[in-house]
């Protein structure tokens, strides 16, 4: 399978040497390889104090006493802020996306009510982290404990302990998308075949290699707060911090330095980070807090956590009649703010249909409070979960009908002529060729089949998906009442010395967007890539963006804005040169840093830049500064799509599932940098393999985290992830300037389904019982044992 980089935006083949589609090495790699990354903990510690967070060791209760006197007496301790002080200094942050029925609409950043193990209760500031931790241990907190409720089943039970007793229920709220329930039930009642199963996708942890971290400096003389934080969303942090501390937003600056991975976890202000800011302000000092891994595994927001009853109705010929997913989501102790609280459950529900046509389809989503750390945005944002349910149902249906699962998909898949298409849940699919991805994957898969041998069974499975990218039109946000701004802006500037700077609301989190944006800028402006600097992540210079790099929007929305802005600036530069050379702009050529007129006269780019900033030679009606800002509000969501295939080996003696081969056929529109695109796919697939086989956050019935170290929470290692063969179809998006779709989340969405389907193919005896993740050796062995297959 080769990577195809065919189409361009307007159907013309790309010009030779075009940077769009070029495998350019990343601009930041030299620096990172030399150890010259600048992550938040790398900032100099001169003048810096260090914070440690005091956290609850119990999952549910009330703080009834707090005594920091022993802590304050320790040499080197500068400050302790307890629950009462923090509550008086930190205002609750309003929640941007409510699920109907949700009564907790703002999130207290400091609370004397304890709702999860790891909840931050106090912050200690000292001369070093070690001393701060010594002091934290001396803080005495009295807690009146209450019974905890853990997991969705427990939260739903009639006599469940209540996370919010005043609400009388653990239900956060509920919503229904798609066709009315009665219409669905009518179809289910009479269909020739109904496949009906319960599925479980557990909580997982993001586990970026760099945990969270923040350095907050408060300067009393100017009433300013300067923050450096490992975050995806500096502008959102700025807003939330200002709100929490009761400051004007223009007194707060947030800078995201190099960020060591995020995957959706670093998309909001966390309570502990707010406490560090409060401490910095109280002291008038710079305070650093670096989350350690133990804290991250317990107190950083998690992802997934869904239990779903999925039903698929078909007619005797295998046509999809109806699909219903009854989704229950584990929200945790409170709705996570910037990451969306119940948002992922809702997106799960909106995207249930995938690339297929259903006569009727609907999802019902209910979110539940539990005594655990909140869940929120995690790469894939709910799409992995509903893809798992749907693609397993499709495979189960194929087995019952005795038909090839690829054939069943093909029969029901929307074709290119069917698009654009509005799903039953009202998602407007744009252009594409979903069967091409299916056929590409199936063709490749035909060569990949390997036989079972002895006690090793082998099988191949597929999963198809559509995904939201380029999130989202502001009108959609208004319609749903989601208070995140979703347009994005990119500014490109030719500096007085001729160098070119790009600022965008998008942020770098390791995905390489700086390189892709530089490629676009260079291509559209018509200058060498070396002239371009893409500077991201500083609220003082970056255009406003709430969402920045998440929801697969960096390239389409930020890059789409740049596509237009850079072209406009190119025309202006050419116009200035034409004016200077007294020639027709259309006749001016630009090569080797020089503008040339037909009569042989020439002027350098540098000279035009200088003159431009003088205001000379410009169109008198036009702008002066040599910069163009483009604000881009995408007209609609642009949908990526793919089919993935997996070939697995299942050891009947140990229950171990090995992914021996993995391939995918994917369309994310125009690919700017295939090196980066392929890397995003493999990285996403690796996380998907983790979800399928390895990862699970677990709690005791008392709410104590069980999987709090890397001995118990298993992340994919190299031996878990085979090389991934890839095909990129590149149907340009008609909604995005440049034709890009996003692809940062694509790799993670299908793997659990494809792998489960492969295991089912390998061991049909247990096929229908593969409904819960992860398919760990123990879980699989137990199914094998119950089927009489072990020895």
């Amino acid at each position, binding site marked *: 399978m080769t990577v195809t980089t065919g189409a361009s935006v307007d159907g013309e083949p790309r010009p030779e040497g075009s940077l769009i589609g070029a495998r350019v090495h990343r601009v930041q790699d030299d620096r990172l390889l030399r150890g010259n990354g600048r992550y938040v903990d790398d900032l100099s510690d001169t003048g810096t104090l260090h914070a440690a967070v005091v956290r609850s060791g119990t999952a549910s209760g009330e703080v009834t006493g707090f005594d920091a006197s022993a802590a304050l007496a320790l040499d080197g301790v500068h400050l302790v802020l307890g629950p009462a002080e923090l509550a008086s200094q930190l205002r609750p942050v309003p929640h941007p996306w409510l699920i109907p029925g949700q009564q907790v609409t703002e999130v207290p950043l400091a609370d004397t009510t304890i709702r999860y193990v790891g909840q931050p209760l106090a912050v200690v500031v000292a001369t*070093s*982290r*070690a001393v701060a*931790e*010594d002091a934290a*241990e001396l803080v005495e907190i009295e807690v009146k404990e209450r019974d905890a409720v853990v997991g969705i089943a427990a939260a739903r039970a009639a006599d469940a302990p209540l996370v919010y007793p005043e609400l009388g229920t653990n239900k956060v709220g509920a919503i229904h998308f798609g066709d009315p329930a009665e219409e669905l039930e009518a179809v289910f009642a009479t269909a020739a075949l109904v496949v009906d199963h319960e599925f479980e996708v557990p909580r997982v942890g993001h586990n970026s290699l760099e945990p969270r971290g923040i350095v907050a400096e408060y300067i009393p003389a100017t009433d300013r707060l300067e923050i450096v934080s490992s975050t995806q969303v500096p502008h959102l942090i700025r807003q939330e911090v200002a709100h929490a501390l009761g400051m004007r937003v223009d007194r707060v600056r947030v800078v995201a330095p190099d960020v060591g991975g995020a995957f959706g976890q670093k998309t909001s202000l966390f309570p502990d980070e707010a406490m560090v800011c409060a401490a910095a302000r109280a002291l008038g000092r710079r305070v650093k807090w670096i989350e*350690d891994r*133990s804290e991250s595994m317990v107190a950083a927001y998690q992802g997934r956590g869904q239990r779903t009853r999925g039903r698929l109705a078909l007619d005797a010929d295998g046509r999809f009649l109806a699909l219903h997913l009854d989704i229950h989501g584990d929200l945790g102790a409170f709705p996570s703010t910037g990451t969306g609280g119940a948002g992922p459950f809702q997106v799960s529900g909106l995207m249930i249909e995938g690339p297929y046509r259903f006569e009727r389809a609907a999802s019902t989503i209910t979110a539940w409070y539990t005594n655990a750390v909140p869940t929120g945005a995690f790469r894939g944002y709910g799409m992995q979960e509903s893809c798992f349910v749907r693609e397993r149902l499709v495979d189960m249906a194929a087995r019952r009908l005795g038909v090839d699962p690829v054939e069943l998909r093909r029969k029901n898949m929307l074709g290119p002529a069917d698009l654009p298409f509005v799903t039953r849940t009202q998602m407007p699919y744009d252009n594409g060729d979903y069967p091409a991805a299916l056929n590409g994957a199936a063709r490749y898969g035909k060569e990949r089949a390997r036989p079972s041998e002895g006690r090793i069974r082998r099988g191949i499975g597929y999963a198809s998906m559509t995904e939201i990218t380029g999130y989202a039109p502001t009108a959609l946000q208004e319609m749903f009442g989601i208070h995140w701004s979703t347009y994005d802006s990119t500014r490109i500037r030719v500096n007085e010395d001729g160098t070119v700077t790009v600022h965008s609301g998008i942020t770098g989190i390791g995905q390489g967007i700086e390189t892709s944006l530089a490629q676009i800028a260079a291509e559209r402006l018509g200058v060498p890539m070396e002239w371009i600097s893409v500077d991201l992540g500083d609220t003082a210079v970056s255009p406003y963006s709430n969402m920045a790099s998440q929801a697969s929007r960096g390239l389409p929305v930020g890059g789409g804005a740049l596509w237009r802005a850079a072209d406009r600036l190119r025309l202006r530069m050419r116009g200035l040169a034409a004016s200077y050379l007294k020639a027709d702009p259309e006749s001016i050529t630009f090569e080797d840093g020089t503008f040339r007129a037909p009569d042989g006269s020439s002027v350098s780019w540098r000279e035009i830049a200088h003159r431009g900033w003088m205001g000379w030679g410009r169109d008198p009606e036009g702008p002066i500064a040599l910069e163009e800002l483009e604000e881009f509000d995408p007209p609609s969501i642009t949908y990526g799509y793919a089919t993935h295939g997996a070939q697995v080996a299942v050891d009947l*003696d*140990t*229950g*171990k599932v090995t992914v021996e081969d993995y391939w995918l056929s994917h369309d994310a529109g125009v690919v700017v940098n295939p090196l980066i695109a392929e890397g995003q796919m493999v990285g996403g697939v690796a996380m998907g393999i983790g979800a399928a086989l*390895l990862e699970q956050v*677990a709690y005791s019935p008392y709410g104590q985290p*069980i*999987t709090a*170290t890397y*001995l*118990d929470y*298993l992340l994919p*290692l190299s*031996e*878990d992830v085979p090389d991934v063969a890839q095909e990129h179809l590149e149907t340009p998006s008609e909604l995005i300037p440049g034709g890009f779709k996003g692809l940062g989340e694509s790799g993670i969405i299908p793997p659990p389904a494809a792998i489960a389907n492969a295991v089912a193919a390998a061991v049909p005896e247990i096929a229908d019982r593969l409904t819960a993740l992860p398919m*760990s*050796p*123990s879980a699989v*062995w*137990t199914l094998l*044992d119950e089927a009489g297959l*072990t*020895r």
Partner: protein
Amino acid sequence: MKPPPFDYYDPTSVDDVLALLAEHTDGASLLAGGQSLLPLLNMRLARPEVLVDLNRVEGLDTITVTADAVELGATVRLASLERDPRIADSLPVLVEAISRVAHPQIRARTTIGGTLCHADPAAEVPALAVGLGAQLHLRSRTGARVVPAEEFFETIFTTVRQPDELLVRADFPRRPGMVTAYDEISRRHGDFPFAGLFLGVSVVDGVVAEARAAAAGVASRPVRLTGLEGALLGRRLADAVADAAEAASAEIDPPSDHHGSAAFRRGLLRTLVRRLCARLDASTQESR
């Protein structure tokens, strides 16, 4: 997290170590490889008043190979055993077990003494020590004693070593006349095993004359599997496999935890018995 405060000593002689242990007893922790102790310190689960660093103690890292045994000083690193041709020659099953411990970057520091005294029930070297019948040499300021491996391990993370004692040497018998092997089943290479098995048999006239078996990960300490051994004695290996697997499965009481049920661990042990019997059967056939 950062370690809690402690006082630190790095003595250069065994006598100095023993003096420190006598003075501080259970307020002292011994630092050898640090691959188990440092995580505990970093998570503040261990809070010694005093850390006694063994890494500069002279004479504690000797390797002596005799006709009967491989004698290893307590601070011998696992990585050096992996690379040492004398060990590959004289006790290959030790190399086999060691190569399954964590990753090369961990084995670079992990010591024989450390992994024995840390007594993780899923650890490879303790199981090998029990399987081979290693003799462990303990010294204190007041005396010395030799404890057979099978008596050394009490329960999870607990041995008979007293707070004022230092393990100075472990002698692993070479067991000439036996073919031996170690295997384990873990999630990935380097993860702690769900179950590990050492098996050694001597075959005379086609039947098992002597058998030694010990398992890791199936109890609160490494255990000798006498039922498995008994099922093999006096029989041809190939004929005894099924009974041996059943016997091993029946004589253990493995834990159920987040990683797997007791039944799962029993199943894995049965698989290991089958695998190792097949391997040893093949090597006894070859050596004829």
